[in-house]
């Protein structure tokens, strides 16, 4: 049974509705029972608006997207009404359309951009064919259609002819994503549904696409439904925001209201759990618990197991929409209470404080645990003999980087994909042999004496350097129980423990990281664990070895937003217990900031194989000196709506080709501040540390007297279509 205030229905944005969902559900029959992946939602999309739909994975957001085109993959079944209102025609019931009508409706009226543009194109057809096919399938004039395509591509900062003549694999991810957007607009639809359209892309590319969307929406009078798990990303794009939780809407309202004055406890918690650059760390707090299983949605309000102010009413009655202001609906019985009390309730649920160290405290006279000196890593083979004619393509992934990591230290490397951060990380823990330069572990060269073998010979060093992967699922052996997984390192490195001691120790660790009851979990297989649990088991496994340095390769980016902060907190806690250091890799500046600031570590920014800036998080986030760090800073979405996103601080969107590195400062092809001297001379890291923190910057602008200041600026053009390809 549901309880609602009928007033909520009255003041909907009654203006001009383009799409209406009424009691729409999507169900899948599964062996475990019937699974409702969208649970009777009501929703209206107004014409010409951008509405952002926020949901964590498994919240039903993809089903919501598909339901609007009646495109739920089989064997899912859509029920309820989905109505489309053409501008000057009769309403259309999408679920009742015939096959042919549906075929025309999709793409001509409402089109869709999927997650994963990488695989949205047929690999054996040219891009042009994709466009032509679509045009002719809908009986559009191909010539005129292609004209439109060229214009669209140009608006997306792509070279039309080059794109059309390419095969999908010849384009970079960002290019493919933009071409896909053009493809979705080729028939001039009224409405565009985008399901995580930027998820697989780098921050800079995400941000560039978001700012392009704004212009495109304007120009083509589009209605956009933008679905994402990343709240900050849409924060200043969307007019309205809708929050999905457990296959239902928790809250829908104007973006300003939702961000500044969220009424639903989940929205408030989500905002607090989202790492960002400006909020004080003390305010960031994980959401306890995990999202429900679609087969087994809790009675009453589906959020009640995680809600700090839940009461009897919440457990028995499913809240319908309550009116929380103009156009603002919230599905919570106690929303008024929530606004006042939720933050207090959260705050009292235990705040963790730690004495903060800073990078400066780790004085220079301390001996580093791992020391990288002028490391260079090259990939690609030179001619390897008699049968190999030509084709020597060498890519320098890491080029001359020096870095010291101390005891109990944290260094987070950030940068776009392909910048070499993972290679550098692997090199630091001995998983990749450098082509040049040395790595020392406590003063010993770790590759010494290993000859040409690609693994470390020294057992002690192998123990001291560990890695935690992005995807814990693939690093845990799926045929072993948790116990076996955790026993292996113990047996190997603590052979003095007997079976009982080992079991005790494992149970203790599981309990410590919040996996309880541990007796129950110890006999499970990895697939019986949730993503967060797997990551924690992987973390314990690394810790049990007692390593000195752990490489955490995007350790939290695969997790849901609500789990990121808690996982990072756990890593920090374990660091204190085990006295390890972390070398973390992240493409996300907000996560990097959280992790580094909480531990007093450093953030290193990499660009095309070089370390362009490194320093304390305060300096890097609030006073970045390098133009590239400034661009990353721009690209990191904030919850703050006033920020201007149209001001792209780069001259080109796409990364230069790696086999043909720019001369001088490698950033000069994109740097807005570049001057002639940057083309020819290469800046070294310059120490700009002050009492606020350490900071080293590889840019001439960090020097007060440098010939840079007298040099001619490189012609200022607006972001142009890419000059060089980065297709591979």
């Amino acid at each position, binding site marked *: 049974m549901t309880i609602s205030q009928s007033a909520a229905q009255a003041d909907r944005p009654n203006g001009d509705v383009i799409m209406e969902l009424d009691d729409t559900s999507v169900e899948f029959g599964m062996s475990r029972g019937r699974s409702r992946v969208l649970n009777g939602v009501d929703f209206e999309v107004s014409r010409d608006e951008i509405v952002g739909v926020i949901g964590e994975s498994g919240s039903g957001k993809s089903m919501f997207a598909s339901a609007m085109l009646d495109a739920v993959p089989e064997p899912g079944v859509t029920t309820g009404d989905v109505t489309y209102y053409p501008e000057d025609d009769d309403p259309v019931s999408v679920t009742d359309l015939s096959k042919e009508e549906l075929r025309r409706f*999709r793409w001509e009226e409402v089109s869709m951009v*999927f997650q994963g543009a990488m*695989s949205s194109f*047929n690999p*054996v057809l040219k891009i042009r064919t994709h466009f032509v096919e679509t045009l002719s399938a809908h009986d559009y004039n191909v010539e005129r259609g292609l004209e439109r395509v060229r214009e669209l591509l140009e608006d997306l900062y792509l070279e039309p002819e080059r794109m059309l003549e390419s095969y999908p694999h010849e384009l970079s991810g960002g290019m493919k994503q933009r071409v896909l957007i053009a493809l979705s607009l080729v028939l001039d639809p009224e409405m565009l549904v985008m399901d995580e359209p930027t998820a697989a892309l780098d921050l800079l590319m995400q941000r560039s696409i978001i700012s392009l969307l704004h212009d495109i929406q304007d120009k083509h009078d589009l209605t956009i439904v933008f679905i994402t798990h990343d709240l900050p990303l849409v924060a200043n794009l969307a007019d309205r925001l809708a929050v999905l939780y457990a296959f239902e809407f928790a809250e829908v309202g104007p973006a300003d209201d939702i961000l500044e004055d969220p009424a639903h406890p989940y929205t408030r918690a989500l905002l607090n759990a989202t790492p960002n650059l400006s909020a004080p760390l003390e305010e960031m707090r994980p959401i306890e618990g995990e999202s429900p299983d679609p087969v087994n949605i809790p009675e009453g309000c589906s959020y009640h197991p995680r809600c700090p102010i839940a009461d009897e009413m919440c457990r028995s009655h499913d809240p319908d929409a309550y009116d929380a202001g103009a156009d603002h609906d919230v599905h919570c019985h106690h929303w008024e209470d929530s606004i006042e009390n939720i933050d207090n309730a959260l705050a009292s649920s235990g705040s963790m404080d730690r004495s903060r160290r800073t990078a400066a405290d780790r004085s220079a006279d301390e001996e580093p645990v791992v020391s990288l000196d002028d490391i260079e890593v090259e990939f690609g083979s030179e001619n390897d003999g008699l049968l190999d004619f030509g084709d020597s393509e060498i890519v320098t992934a890491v080029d001359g980087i020096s870095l010291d990591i101390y005891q109990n230290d944290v260094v987070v490397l950030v940068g776009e994909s392909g910048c070499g951060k993972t290679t550098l990380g692997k090199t630091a823990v001995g998983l990749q042999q450098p082509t040049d330069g040395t790595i020392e572990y406590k003063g010993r060269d770790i590759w010494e004496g290993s000859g040409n073998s690609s693994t470390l010979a020294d057992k002690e060093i192998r123990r001291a350097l560990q890695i935690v992967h992005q995807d814990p699922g693939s690093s845990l052996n799926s045929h072993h129980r948790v116990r076996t997984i955790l026993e292996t390192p113990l047996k190997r490195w603590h052979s003095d423990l007997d079976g009982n001691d080992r079991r005790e120790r494992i149970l203790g660790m599981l309990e410590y990281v919040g996996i309880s009851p541990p007796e129950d979990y110890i006999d499970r297989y990895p697939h019986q664990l949730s993503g967060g649990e797997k990551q924690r088991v992987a973390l314990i496994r690394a810790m049990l070895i007692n390593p000195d340095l752990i490489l955490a390769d995007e350790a939290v980016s695969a997790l849901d937003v609500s789990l990121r902060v808690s996982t990072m907190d756990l890593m920090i806690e374990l660091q204190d217990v085990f006295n390890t250091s972390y070398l973390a890799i992240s493409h996300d500046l907000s996560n990097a900031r959280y992790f580094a600031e909480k531990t007093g570590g450093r953030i290193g920014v990499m660009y095309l194989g070089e370390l362009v800036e490194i320093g304390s998080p305060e300096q890097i986030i609030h006073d970045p000196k390098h133009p590239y760090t400034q661009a990353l800073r721009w690209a990191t979405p904030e919850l703050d709506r006033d920020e201007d996103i149209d001001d792209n601080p780069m001259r080109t969107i796409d990364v230069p080709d790696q086999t043909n590195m720019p001369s001088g400062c490698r950033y000069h092809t994109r740097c807005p501040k570049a001057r002639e001297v940057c083309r020819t001379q290469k800046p070294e890291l310059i120490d700009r540390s002050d009492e606020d923190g350490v900071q080293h910057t590889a840019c001439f602008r960090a020097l007060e007297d440098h010939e840079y200041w007298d040099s001619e600026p490189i012609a200022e053009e607006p972001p142009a279509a890419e000059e060089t390809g980065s297709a591979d």
Partner: protein
Amino acid sequence: MDWKIRRFGQGLFTVWAVVSLTFFITRMMPGNPVDAFVAQIGPELENPQEAYELAETYMNINPEAPLHVAYRDYMISMVQGDLGRSMSQNAEVTELMAEAVPWTLFVMSWAIAISFVVGISLGAIMAYWEGSTFDTAVTGYATTVTSIPFYVLALLLLMVFGYQLGWFPTGGRQPSGVEAGFNLPFMLGMIHHAALPVFSMLVASGAASLTMRGNSVRILGEDYLRVARLRGLADRTIAVRYVARNAILPMYTGLMIAIGTMFGGAVVLEEIYTYRGMGYYMIQAVRMRDYPLMMGAFTVITIAVVIALLIADLTYGKIDPRAGGENREAF
């Protein structure tokens, strides 16, 4: 362009290596064919010295010449297409081969074509009705057939259809009593004789159908297929351009490799059916210790396989745009 030359070079290298190897085996191995030949023929001749000259006629190898000279002469005659002279058939090996190879090709190309067409069609149908009774039945059939060695099937077919039912001839390659040439009875007779060998090779269709099924099922789940449907493309376009093309592509290389293995299979098959193709001669040569013929057949098989693979490589880029350039891994 560059890599084409490279592939060509690699092919040439393989042929050269194999030919050299045959030379060194023939000439250098203890108890090698040349010595054996001389020892065998010599005592029967009035002038034992002639044995050496005969060796040169038959094997292109002069046992008395210094190694490098012998090697050079051997290579030159190879390049000139002179594979020596068969002792048992008393004819030029080149001629024998030229006469036998087309028959082998005839059987093999039919076998390959039919088994791939059958395999691909079955696989496509199975994928389309994934999970149906048809799917399960054919999967079972295909698995069984794949695990039967072709020569076992060949013997079975020969027994049942050749000897017991008498529907097909039990040996030979052409009808007797019909004038050879482009006349209908002769053609039909040829097909009649080739039928059983061709069908024995159909075991390959089992593997092909399973691969095709797997590929198609995978592609049916691809994002681009879903996008194509949403874009409103016609079902036929999707089936042909999206599913079939992408599913068959990875099998192309497999097809060319199959050619290689089938040449190997031909040796056994032709022996079973006394089908006088290249493989038949090769067995004969082994039986009669006819080294020149053996080496010749061996060389021809090598060249044929190398050419097949070369064609596969060079044409693959035409049908799959992703091939050709090195796909550098992202790091």
